């Protein structure tokens, strides 16, 4: 009996976990991973040493990365936290990357070759201020030192160990330090700034010990505006706050002398408000007006001269010293589809060191930033390379009039993702270039066969592996039978749309959206979300599918909306609309018109509903379903959830038949003193549920409460909405609600005392799983609520079903009283979460798994059966057979079930699951700074042969069998003949 139970337990546990992990040689077969760094803010080249040339970059996503200058690959990269904004980077001693971050309070040194942190020191000061980082070649007490100005304090820090050598406070309340300057070859430092916006102050400080040598100040009649531009080591240029008077201030030897020049003297036409551009080119500074960028040279004592007036899209780099006393800088200008890169010496505007014209993809937009670097050519002359950052956040290296490499770093900030099918394979569509010929096909299979029969040499194995990875099957541009090949369409923060192929992650097309382009009427366009606009199905197969991009002009919710329609096969924007109303919510309706365009309802900030597309056909379809359209809004700030229905046509002064007024149907008001909404979750619209009923152990049936109008809301005590640990368990609680969004009925309400957010939740079928922190247990917890419909519970009797005396086929109405029962259970979970999702299959038959984005930026798969509220300590035999796992207090983390295997998706934001056509498989796309895509089969691929199945072996076996049959048949014939003759 013991053996029996042991065997039973063995089978039970082995069936518990289907093998989720991969073998080593399966990595990269179905998954791909791409690494990005985001929009570059500052770049420093490191090319002096022989060996690998690199560029160090800091980005707006708070990343420090070094890239290979030859290929653009990442050598190493560090993601600083979201609150650790990089203020400045530099290279010191030729081997350390110095970063100043967190508002100037953290200074770190990283080892350049491998990215190890060498030292870190924290700098604090008396007040918040601008942070400036200055590397010098000053030697103080035998140490090379850095000068850092941050938080109102000037620090000299040793490069070797980060020790603060001396410090000097600038405590004067109104002082705004603008520049810290070390004149070359001197051992003193100028600290230049404004006091009370109208006083110009200079401090001359001994660089060896921080002693104040001299302090001068001059009052100015007007007020200064923002930035100053350094013209020489003892002269700065500034603008007054009206933007009309230019000031050049020189402080030679501590004596301040200033010159005022009205901008209108320099320019004939009135330029409007001017802004000074930050640059560090000696003798020249630039101002930017509404119409143009103007370069101004300072001649002698404050005399100004306009050297060039260029159009708006001109970018200038910082100065680069190329030889003793000689500086150069780069200018990038747009001319049609080309960009002109010009490198000029600082002293002579009219001569050019380099002038190149490079053809640039229009979809990259304007140049935003340029960084230059020089090298010695083979003919001993100066060569220049430029790193440019484009409007779409991409990064390009230009050298010798060509683009050496480019990185699509816009993909580091994806806002929304949707998928699109690929074109159907047709006779006319040529896919020949990726097709293999018969010989290669056979060769491949023979190799595979050798591998199977263990006859392959190591070279063969490598060839097999290469073949598997580079399989042309997966990267074809046509639809496949299993639905694995799709286009992932991603909208990035830069307003660019990318289509990625799921097979290998390559960019099929990319398009900078015109509607999300900065313009006069739309100053700050931001993309909101993506929706499938047209999915050709039956009668509109000739049309290409298209996606709808929704954006708005500005961060506030009442800013006007913009719409774009983009063809998913070509990336062409065939329609773009500037709306006359705002966009608060976009509701894809379950109706399509005759060309398979989906009807969308856009709700504006005034709760008017606008129907799109604006066609008479759409309005006809919509009118018939008019009374069945409901929606809800969640007001997080006030804690009010409201439900609406449509009423009549808009009663505005403009007759708009696509606009509808709404009426308030229900409202839920949460007491503001005890509850604050932190998370909501709804079911995915496209989720399929296979069975309505759940058979439980004792041959009993429970009916799932499946409603697409279910809303999960989590609230916490307002006090407890901060960091974990900021409140005691007694004054924090977490309340969860399940709400029907048509009638506003609260189906379930439950309080977790002593618990706190952040809450991550996922709602699927009839269950919701959420994750939070339990302050009493000092651990994270995950809870599950399953909701069952009791009004159908009487339909258990087989006879009733046979006779037809049941209510299973009657339509379900939200207005019926909901008789639901809920079951819930909580479990401890080790990790904190960044994202949570659930696998999605096409028919919903395959068992579900939760995909958990862990704090370590990996994706962990967790079987939903572990989160079953019916788990008990000693499940009965029948329950075990049903698959109920004995109760444990915490959820297991099985190392093999990380679907990202050894990879990390840095800065993980969200996990998106898409159903493949194959029921067993779900496509998983995780994005953050990095992108990761894989196929995942929660219950293994039970409905298809594995990809390493050897068809050749099968074929050979069949051939061999047929041959054997023939041989034996002939032999037997012969034998029979001989027998007859005998």
């Amino acid at each position, binding site marked *: 009996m013991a053996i029996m139970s042991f065997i039973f337990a063995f089978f039970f546990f082995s069936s518990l976990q289907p093998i989720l992990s991969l073998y080593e040689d399966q990595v990269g077969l179905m998954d791909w991973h791409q690494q990005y760094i985001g929009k570059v803010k500052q770049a420093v080249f490191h090319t002096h040493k022989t060996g690998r040339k690199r560029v160090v970059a800091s980005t707006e996503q708070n990343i420090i990365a070094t890239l290979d200058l030859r290929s653009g690959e990442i050598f190493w990269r560090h993601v600083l936290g979201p609150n650790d904004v990089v203020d400045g980077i530099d290279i010191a001693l030729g081997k350390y990357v110095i970063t100043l971050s967190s508002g100037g309070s953290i200074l770190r040194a990283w080892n350049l070759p491998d990215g190890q942190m060498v030292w870190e020191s924290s700098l604090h000061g008396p007040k918040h201020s601008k942070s400036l980082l200055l590397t010098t070649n000053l030697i103080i007490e035998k140490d090379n030192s850095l000068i850092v100005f941050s938080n109102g304090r000037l620090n000299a820090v040793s490069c070797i160990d980060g020790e603060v050598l001396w410090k000097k406070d600038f405590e004067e309340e109104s002082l705004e330090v603008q520049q810290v300057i070390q004149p070359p070859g001197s051992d003193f430092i100028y600290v230049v700034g404004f006091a009370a916006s109208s006083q110009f102050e200079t401090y001359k400080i001994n660089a060896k010990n921080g002693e104040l040598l001299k302090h001068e100040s001059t009052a100015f009649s007007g007020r200064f505006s923002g930035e100053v531009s350094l013209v020489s080591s003892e002269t700065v240029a500034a603008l007054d706050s009206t933007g009309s008077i230019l000031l050049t201030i020189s402080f030679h030897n501590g004596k301040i002398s200033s010159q005022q020049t009205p901008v209108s003297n320099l320019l004939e036409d009135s330029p409007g408000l001017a802004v000074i551009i930050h640059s560090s080119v000696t003798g020249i500074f630039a101002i930017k007006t509404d119409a143009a960028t103007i370069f101004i040279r300072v001649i002698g004592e404050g005399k100004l001269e306009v050297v060039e007036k260029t159009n708006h899209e001109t970018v200038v780099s910082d100065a680069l010293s190329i030889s003793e006393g000689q500086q150069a800088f780069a200018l990038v200008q747009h001319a049609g589809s080309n960009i002109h890169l010009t490198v000029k010496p600082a002293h002579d505007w009219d001569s050019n060191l380099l002038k190149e014209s490079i053809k640039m993809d229009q979809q990259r937009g304007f140049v935003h930033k340029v960084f230059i670097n020089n090298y010695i050519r083979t003919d001993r002359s100066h060569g220049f390379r430029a790193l440019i950052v484009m409007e779409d956040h991409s990064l390009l290296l230009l050298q010798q009039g060509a683009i050496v490499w480019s990185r699509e770093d816009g993909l580091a900030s994806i806002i929304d993702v949707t998928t699109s099918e690929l074109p159907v394979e047709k006779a006319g569509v040529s896919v020949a270039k990726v097709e293999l010929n018969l010989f290669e096909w056979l060769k491949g299979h023979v190799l595979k066969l050798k591998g199977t029969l263990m006859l392959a040499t190591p070279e063969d194995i490598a060839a097999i592996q290469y073949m598997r990875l580079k399989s042309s099957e997966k990267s074809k541009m046509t639809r496949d039978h299993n639905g694995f090949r799709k286009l992932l369409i991603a909208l990035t923060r830069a307003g660019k749309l990318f289509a990625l192929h799921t097979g290998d992650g390559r960019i099929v097309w990319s398009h900078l959206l015109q509607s999300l382009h900065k313009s006069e009427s739309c100053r700050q366009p931001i993309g909101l979300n993506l929706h499938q606009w047209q999915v050709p199905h039956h009668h509109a197969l000739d049309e290409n599918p298209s996606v709808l991009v929704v954006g708005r002009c500005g961060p506030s919710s009442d800013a006007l909306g913009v719409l774009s329609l983009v063809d998913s096969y070509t990336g062409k924007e065939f329609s773009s609309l500037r709306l006359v109303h705002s966009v608060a919510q976009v509701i894809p309706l379950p109706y399509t018109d005759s060309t398979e365009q989906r009807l969308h309802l856009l709700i504006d900030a005034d709760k008017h509903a606008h129907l799109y597309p604006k066609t008479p056909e759409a309005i006809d379809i919509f009118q018939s379903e008019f009374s069945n359209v409901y929606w809800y809004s969640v007001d997080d700030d006030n804690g009010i959830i409201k439900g609406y229905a449509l009423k009549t046509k808009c009663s505005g002064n403009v007759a708009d038949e696509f606009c509808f007024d709404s*009426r308030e149907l229900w409202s839920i008001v949460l007491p503001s003193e005890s509850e604050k909404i932190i998370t909501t979750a709804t079911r995915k619209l496209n989720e399929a549920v296979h069975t309505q009923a759940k058979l439980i152990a004792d041959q009993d049936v429970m009916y799932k409460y499946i409603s697409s109008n279910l809303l999960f809301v989590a609230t916490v005590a307002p006090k407890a909405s901060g960091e974990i640990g900021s409140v005691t368990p007694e004054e924090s609680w977490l309340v969860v609600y399940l709400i029907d969004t048509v009638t506003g009925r609260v189906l379930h309400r439950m309080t977790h*005392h002593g618990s706190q957010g952040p809450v991550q939740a996922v709602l699927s079928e009839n269950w919701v799983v959420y994750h939070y922190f339990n302050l009493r247990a000092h651990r994270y917890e995950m809870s599950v609520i399953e909701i069952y419909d009791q009004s159908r519970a009487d339909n258990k009797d087989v006879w009733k079903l046979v006779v037809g005396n049941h209510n299973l086929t009657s339509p379900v109405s939200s207005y*019926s009283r909901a008789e639901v029962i809920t079951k*819930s259970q909580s479990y401890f979970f080790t990790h904190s979460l960044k994202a949570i999702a659930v696998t999605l299959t096409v028919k919903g038959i395959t068992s579900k798994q939760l995909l958990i984005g862990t704090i370590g930026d990996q994706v962990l798969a967790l079987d939903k059966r572990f989160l079953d509220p019916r788990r008990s300590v000693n499940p009965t035999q029948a329950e075990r057979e049903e698959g109920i796992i004995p109760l444990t207090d915490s959820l297991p983390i099985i190392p093999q079930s990380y679907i990202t295997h050894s990879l990390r998706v840095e800065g993980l934001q969200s996990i998106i699951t898409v159903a493949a056509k194959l029921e067993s498989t779900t496509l998983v796309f995780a994005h953050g700074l990095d992108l990761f895509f894989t196929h995942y089969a929660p219950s293994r691929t039970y409905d298809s042969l594995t990809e390493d199945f050897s068809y050749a072996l099968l074929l050979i076996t069949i051939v061999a069998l047929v041959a054997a049959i023939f041989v034996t048949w002939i032999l037997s014939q012969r034998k029979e003949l001989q027998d007859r003759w005998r």
Partner: protein
Amino acid sequence: MKWVKVIVSFILTLSFLSFPSCAFQSDELLVDDEEFGLEGAPQHRSPEPIPTRSPPVTSPTRKRHSDLDSDSKIQFSLDHAFGDSDFSPAGTFSARLKTWSHGGQTLTKLRFSRNSFSDVEKEKFKNLLESDDFYRIRLPSNVLSPPGRDFIISSVKARCLPRESLDEHFVIHMEGVNVLAVNYGSPGSCPYPRNLKLPAKWSFSSHTVLKNSEQAPRAPVFTEEILGGENAEGEVVQPAERSFWAKYWMYLIPLGLIVMNAITQAMNMPEEQATGQVPAQGQPSAGAVQRGPSSAVRRR
């Protein structure tokens, strides 16, 4: 002091009863339960919602003098609207406000008196029925200082209400003295093709339920128990005794087949004897036919 003890022990037993699944609660948890038990004692006393059926006619509420001093009577009104019309008073909820020693306040003994429809309202309601429009109600979000921050609104298609009389069902979700939400609708189902049906009686029969928050089940905390269970490998839970058939079906089926085989053979025997007496040449085909099945049976 004695009654406190009694109440505590009563609540302790109740909390045990209300968490039958948490067999492994530690002492610490029990202390917590006690604390919460005090706070939300009415919930424990009635884990099931308290359905109070009030007659359609206004019933005078009695004040019981034996209650604690901290009890006070409060009233709040229900407003209704027909379609998009303005709200007008439709009834009054009266309840007793219980103030707990630690400051919490809860409502108990909710009663509802519904005003009957005036003729104008009847007409309006008929219009709603005809146009399949919404009948809307609202409650204050705070019962002590109505309307609180905002009104709680709920609505139902008017055609869901008429049965014999006008049947309505309120589930009021409360948190202390705040009304969070109200589930309003017919007490039964309201299937989708809503048919026009006028009520026989123009009076309301109302059911009201007051619901407070439930407590979430705690994560099971057990360490020794599970280990102990594993150590005692010998006394693993015996699988439930299976029935005779479940145990021995693999023997019973072949046995049954053998028996059947034997029976058919026994049946065939006399026939064969009977046919055997007749000259075999006479009916060769019949013999073959009969031999067929019997040989087949024998082969089994």
